[in-house]
């Protein structure tokens, strides 16, 4: 016996800001997030890709205490900020639990029956990089600065100044770095911040992390382990030297054709050249059992009706070309909900813009949905937020079901497959939708959502 699960609150922090409804309007308007990477990065590596999708970082000092800002990686603060939005969106008020710790409680939730599930691809990598940089450079830079003072030639001094600038580092080796970088930090601190003591899990399936987190929360509620859960994903991939970007760039995953910038990010198009790296983002959903939501008198945004996942067992960075495990996952998802492919009107694709992902994903969608399904790629708007992307796309799918409206997939002028791609904002009538994510490593994950009853 399983219980119905509904979505009652949504929180998104993205390139479009931190307001969920404004985010959704921007998606429907086909707004694109794209900009040149920080100029400074070019001093440290020869980059093939030159574009990214910058994040509209929230005002952390306004939202969190001085101590919280010093002790948490942005990936954790982003998750907390999105969680706060999801709770507020679900009509749940918070009150101060501990003034010094700046923690809260949520009186409308039973803390022991509320879980937290947060996915992240790499966790607190910003904190790791910053502290590693400090350890490697601090003493060396200090010695170099002393040598610079002994230089008489103005030209030498100028060159030394330029090198010292390149050796810039943060003010300290942070004593909290271990708890900042660990990948379970977002899940842990979202729960600490809100005093939630039910099941708690960090999910690390690279680009599918957010989807798996929402899926695990769904299962925990459906099977009665908890009555409600905050679930989603968070990622923050910025660092002073562009090393994280370089990692994705050097393996040829990122957009290579960068002119004009607005046309660079083109999932499912024949001229695609890679994915648009995103600085970061986060999304959290408040999930509840249908009974729990009804008892609170809150109207669901939509129903979360299923979760399935599978694994390619093929390659760490390429999908298995035939997509057999992906196909099996989708068929399992449909069968588990007692549906057929014809019941699904919309599929929010993984749709990264890499050659291998889009080719594989498109042929699987054609096989599983021979009668057609509307397809778009949210990554064509926001770039790829890795561990946050699945959660952000779950939010988009929920809002698409609520409003019976689909956002356009951008730069799709020469589609690689004969699919029902959505290239302009469209009103559609549909009762079920799928959001799927496919990840480095070989993880496939998909959520089935249904229109609220």
């Amino acid at each position, binding site marked *: 016996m399983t219980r119905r699960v509904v979505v009652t609150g949504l929180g998104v922090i993205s390139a479009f800001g931190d307001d969920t409804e404004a985010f959704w309007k921007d998606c429907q308007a086909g707004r694109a997030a794209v900009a040149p990477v920080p100029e400074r990065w070019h001093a440290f590596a020869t980059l093939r890709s030159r574009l990214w999708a910058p994040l509209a970082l929230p005002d952390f000092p306004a939202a969190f205490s001085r*101590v919280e800002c*010093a*002790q948490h990686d942005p990936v954790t603060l982003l998750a907390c900020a999105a969680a706060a939005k999801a709770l507020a969106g679900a009509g749940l008020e918070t009150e101060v639990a501990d*003034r*010094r710790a700046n923690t809260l409680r949520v009186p409308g939730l039973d803390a022991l029956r509320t879980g937290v599930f947060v996915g992240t691809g790499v966790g607190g990598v910003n904190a790791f990089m910053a502290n590693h940089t400090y350890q490697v450079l601090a003493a060396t830079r200090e010695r170099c600065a002393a040598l610079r003072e002994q230089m008489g030639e103005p030209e030498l001094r100028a060159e030394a100044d330029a090198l010292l600038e390149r050796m810039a580092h943060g*003010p*300290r080796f942070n*004593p*909290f770095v271990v708890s900042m970088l660990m990948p379970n930090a977002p899940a842990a601190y979202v729960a600490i911040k809100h005093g939630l003591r039910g099941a708690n899990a960090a999910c690390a399936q690279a680009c599918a992390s957010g989807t798996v987190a929402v899926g695990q929360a769904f299962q925990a509620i459906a099977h009665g382990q908890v009555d409600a859960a905050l679930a989603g994903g968070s990622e923050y991939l910025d660092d002073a030297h562009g090393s994280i970007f370089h990692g994705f760039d050097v393996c040829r995953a990122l957009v290579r054709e960068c002119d004009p910038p607005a046309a660079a990010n083109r999932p499912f198009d024949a001229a695609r050249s890679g994915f648009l790296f995103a600085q970061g983002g986060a999304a959290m959903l408040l999930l509840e059992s249908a009974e729990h939501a009804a008892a609170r008198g809150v109207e669901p945004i939509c129903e979360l009706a299923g979760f399935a996942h599978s694994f390619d067992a093929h390659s760490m960075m390429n999908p298995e070309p035939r997509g057999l495990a992906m196909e099996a996952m989708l068929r399992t998802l449909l069968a588990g909900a007692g549906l057929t492919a014809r019941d699904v009107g919309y599929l929010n694709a993984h749709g990264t813009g890499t050659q291998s992902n889009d080719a594989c994903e498109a042929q699987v969608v054609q096989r599983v949905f021979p009668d057609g399904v509307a397809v778009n790629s949210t990554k064509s708007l926001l770039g790829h937020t890795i561990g946050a992307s699945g959660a952000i796309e779950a939010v988009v799918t929920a809002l698409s079901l609520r409003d019976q409206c689909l956002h356009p997939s951008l730069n799709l002028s020469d589609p690689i497959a004969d699919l029902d791609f959505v290239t302009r904002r469209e009103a559609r009538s549909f009762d079920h939708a799928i959001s799927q994510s496919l990840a480095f490593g070989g993880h496939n994950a998909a959520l089935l959502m249904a229109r609220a009853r």
Partner: protein
Amino acid sequence: MTAGIHRPENIESRVLRVVQDVLALEELPRDLDVSIAAELALDSLDQLSLFMALEDEFGGRIREEDAEQIITLRDVVSYVRDRMSVARVE
């Protein structure tokens, strides 16, 4: 203009403001002789938080071996006044 920022009373009030902020106190602490561990209830991680905030405020460093000698708020103020090398311009 940097003249005046080393004035002892100025440093003391700035230290106390940082303490108030980190501890989320409703008022500035008045008794400088309270123990930060026992009376202000700062465990070792809380003390690290306070020292990091002071480093951010005053721009210097509190060395680990020195931190163990800091017992009271007065010790904190004295350390900042005497040992932290760079004062931020207000």
